[in-house]
């Protein structure tokens, strides 16, 4: 089984870059035990739940802050045909644009109500985050050409991040009093692979007078567990031969959360997730390019006069100057995508709640924020549903939904922040996320239990 996890991890490692995103709709789904992933102070309604390996909770998220369908595809009014409009695409880009792909799957998860105050959680989750940052300058050069930037120094410094690890967590929520509930989850992390861009600085300057091209580049990429894959020394299928003991990069992280019942109807919540790091010490490698620079002023007339062209020498010079070198490196730490949720839930009526959520994520110095508004309704014990609106990733048309259906003891669910808007507003959609799975649930709480603090 562990080998399969690693294979999945490796597959994601080779896929498009991505980064973890907010799950605003999941936050509001009180019928799902997985909502404690958002805030460890949340207490499931069931006495006990069990997530079956591989199918209890799988999460996929694709986001692109740079462009969407409408900025990429246009209609030629003369022929009524479609065409890829790269010029329109470029106009919609920001200075930095992120293409993210995240994936998580629970290997095992369970929760148990220990007593009236404490609920215990145990989980093992495989997580993969990939992110590619493509700057406006890079796409601008490709689409507009360097002639659009005469006399300017165009920075085109892409950054790539990859993080995959196995998260083994144990945590609990504890009801302190009738207003305050706190929760914590302690996570032992086993790093699989990491690629992180420590420095990326590429510029192209086109002289406005002579069109001479000056290319500069500095690059530092730290990797762990990825050298053989990068160098093509192994195939993805070789990961099947890996075992748990091969995961020698250890880390630790903690999730903290709290809820506060401000009034009978209003509850505030706060959580801070992924506070920790992984120390990468196995198979570490650094790829670097230190101060590479080349200036092309055209073919040299002396070379031409002597029967040559100089192009071969230029190619060789370019290759030698800009071919990244690699070397072993000492251990290093990589942070996790730290996430912060601040929420307010208001009970409009029995089993009908309205929530507001502020979200922030910090990863490698980049901070992304989001806002969500959610309406949640439980229809008896069996069905729960949520509708959400989220503004994130410079996208303001995310309509999401969550749905759970329980046929004792099995509960099926899906939840997404944009599953409604993406098909309807697919022209402007920039994100698509989905969490789905099956839980085995036992001991549903019938109505409000007697508060433990009244004992």
């Amino acid at each position: 089984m562990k080998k399969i996890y690693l294979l999945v991890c490796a597959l994601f490692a080779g896929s498009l870059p991505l980064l973890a995103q907010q799950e605003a709709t999941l936050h509001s789904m009180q019928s799902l035990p997985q909502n404690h992933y958002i805030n460890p102070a949340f207490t499931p309604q069931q006495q006990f739940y069990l997530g079956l390996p591989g199918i209890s909770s799988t999460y996929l998220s694709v986001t692109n802050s740079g462009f969407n369908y409408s900025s990429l595809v246009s209609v030629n009014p003369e022929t009524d045909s479609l065409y890829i409009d790269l010029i329109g695409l470029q106009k919609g880009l920001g200075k930095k644009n992120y293409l993210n792909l995240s994936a998580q799957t629970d290997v095992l998860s369970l929760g148990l109500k220990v007593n009236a105050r404490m609920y215990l959680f145990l989980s093992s989750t495989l997580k993969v985050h990939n992110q590619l940052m493509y700057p406006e300058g890079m796409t601008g050069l490709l689409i507009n050409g360097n002639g659009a930037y005469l006399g300017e120094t165009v920075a085109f410094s892409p950054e790539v991040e990859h993080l995959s690890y196995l998260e083994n967590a144990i945590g609990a929520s504890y009801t302190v009093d009738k207003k305050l509930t706190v929760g914590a989850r302690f996570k032992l992390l086993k790093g699989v692979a990491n690629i992180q861009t420590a420095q990326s600085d590429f510029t192209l300057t086109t002289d406005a007078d002579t069109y001479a091209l000056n290319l500069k580049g500095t690059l530092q990429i730290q990797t762990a567990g990825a050298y053989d894959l990068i160098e093509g020394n192994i195939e993805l299928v070789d990961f099947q031969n890996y075992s748990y003991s091969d995961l020698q990069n250890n880390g630790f992280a903690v999730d903290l959360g709290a809820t506060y019942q401000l009034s009978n109807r209003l509850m505030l919540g706060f959580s801070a997730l992924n506070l920790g790091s992984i120390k990468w010490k196995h198979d570490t490698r650094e790829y670097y390019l230190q101060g590479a620079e080349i200036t092309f002023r055209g073919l040299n007339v002396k070379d031409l006069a002597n029967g040559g062209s100089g192009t071969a020498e230029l190619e060789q010079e370019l290759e030698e100057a800009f071919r990244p070198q690699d070397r072993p490196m000492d251990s290093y730490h990589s942070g996790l995508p730290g996430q912060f949720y601040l929420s307010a839930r208001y009970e409009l009526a029995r089993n009908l709640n309205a929530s507001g959520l502020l979200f922030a994520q910090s990863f490698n110095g980049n901070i992304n924020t989001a806002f969500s508004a959610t309406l949640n309704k439980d229809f008896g014990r069996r069905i729960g549903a949520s509708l959400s609106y989220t503004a994130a990733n410079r996208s303001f048309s995310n309509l999401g939904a969550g749905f759970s259906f329980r046929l004792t003891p099995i509960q099926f669910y899906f939840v997404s922040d944009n599953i409604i808007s993406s098909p309807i507003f697919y022209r402007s959609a920039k994100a698509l996320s989905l969490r789905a799975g099956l839980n085995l649930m036992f001991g549903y709480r019938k109505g409000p239990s007697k508060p433990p603090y009244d004992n």
Partner: protein
Amino acid sequence: MALLLGCQACLNQKDFDFEQFEGVKLAPSVAVPLLHGSLTIEDLLPAGTNKNVVYDENQLIHLVYDDTLYTTAIRDHFLLKPLWLNKAYYTPAEGVISGGDYVAVNDRQFLSLDMGEADIDEINLTEGLLELNAYSNIDAEVELLVTLPEITSEGEAVSLTLRLPASSSSYQYTTLHLSGYNIDLTDYGAGKNLIPVDIKATVLSSGQDISLGLNDYVEVNLEMNGLNFSLMTGNFGQLKVSLPQNEIAIDIFDQLFSKANFSLKAPQLRIDVLNTNGVPVRLEKELLQARKDDKPVVVETNPSTYFDLSYPSAPGEEAGLSSLEITNINDIISLTPNFIDYKFSGHLNVDQPADIVNFITGESKLAVILHADILLWGYLEALTLTDTLEMPLQSEDAMVDEALIRTHIQNEFPLGADVQVYFTNEHYDTFDSLFSEGPQALIPASEVTDKGELARAGSFTDDIEINNQRFERILEATHMIVKATLYTSRNADGTPVDVKIKSNQALSVELGLKTNMNVTVKQ
């Protein structure tokens, strides 16, 4: 499933009708540097790499041209013809001779070289065959010994022996290759150019009496043929050889000067004669003229009518080089001749002591060489160069909407060029040109001082723009004709000035190309 169906229902099928997909459209603007750097004549032709281009200490450029107009060999007049000797020796009387061998013949004959007035002393042979055949009808064995005492190899004289058996008709034959033999022709009183041949015939007795008949004889035939030599010494006499009138086609003047108005400040033109014969030769000029088709100009020389050629005094010494200065160079260059007509005669040993010893070797020759040294100092007007090229652009290049060629030129050469590019169809009919305003002074000549030295480099900075309409027209062309009109720097009043073109003057170029493209990548 319901979710998927719901999603599918939301999609506008037209948004995903990729069968009608036109492709990818983009309009990049690409700017690239094309050329840069500076170039001097010396960069193109480093000193010493081309014998026709020489730089002097002032970096002035000399175009040096040497062409061998005529080559002759004096040895052609001293060839060794075949030599032969035929002699029959009859017995003195009929009778019987007792008492041993009988020497029937002991004679000296001479082979004579036909050398006219020449008195040859020595010949070193490289080729030749000596053939001896003899006949006898004596009824006894005859031993024939033929010796050439003055033909030797390593001190040994040529000596041939034949034995003619007793018979009424006996014939024998032998040969000797003469390569490596020397012939000593020093006159030992016999006369000049004679090779002595000693003939001895002995009738062998074999212990019996020798019986001789009345008509018994021995006949000797000696022949030397195929003779060639590596060295001949002696006094060759005052041979006078009149060379036939001839013409030589030359192209240097046509190549350099026929297409333009020009003036050269200090050209040099002379005729060199290289003499490797060890013979004093007086070359007498009977006709020397430059001719442009039917229009001749007499080549005036110093000396005017004849000159005595230098010569090596001993084999192995350097060849004698004699120069005949041409005094009306500008007249000849102005004519831009394509022929030189000449008729010379050579006279050996004129005004030389009677006992002078001459020599010729196997490689000796007399070469007449036209030598031109054109110093690039002068002026040039309207030298037009044209070249027709196939169009490098293809229809695929139609994606280029506009093109702009940015040009920076700094020219230290006092030589400028007006350039135009014409575009033609397959019949070479011109239908457009690159510069609508006419030829452009893309390469401006530098400014020069009164002495023709560089004062300030010429400069040209401009953008050559080709818009979409013109570009489409150009794409229709199958050929382009590049026409450049070259001229040297001019005074402020426009009159030409003598300029100096130097090896260290540089042409600095920076060319860049900016294109606005309109690209559709079809699926």
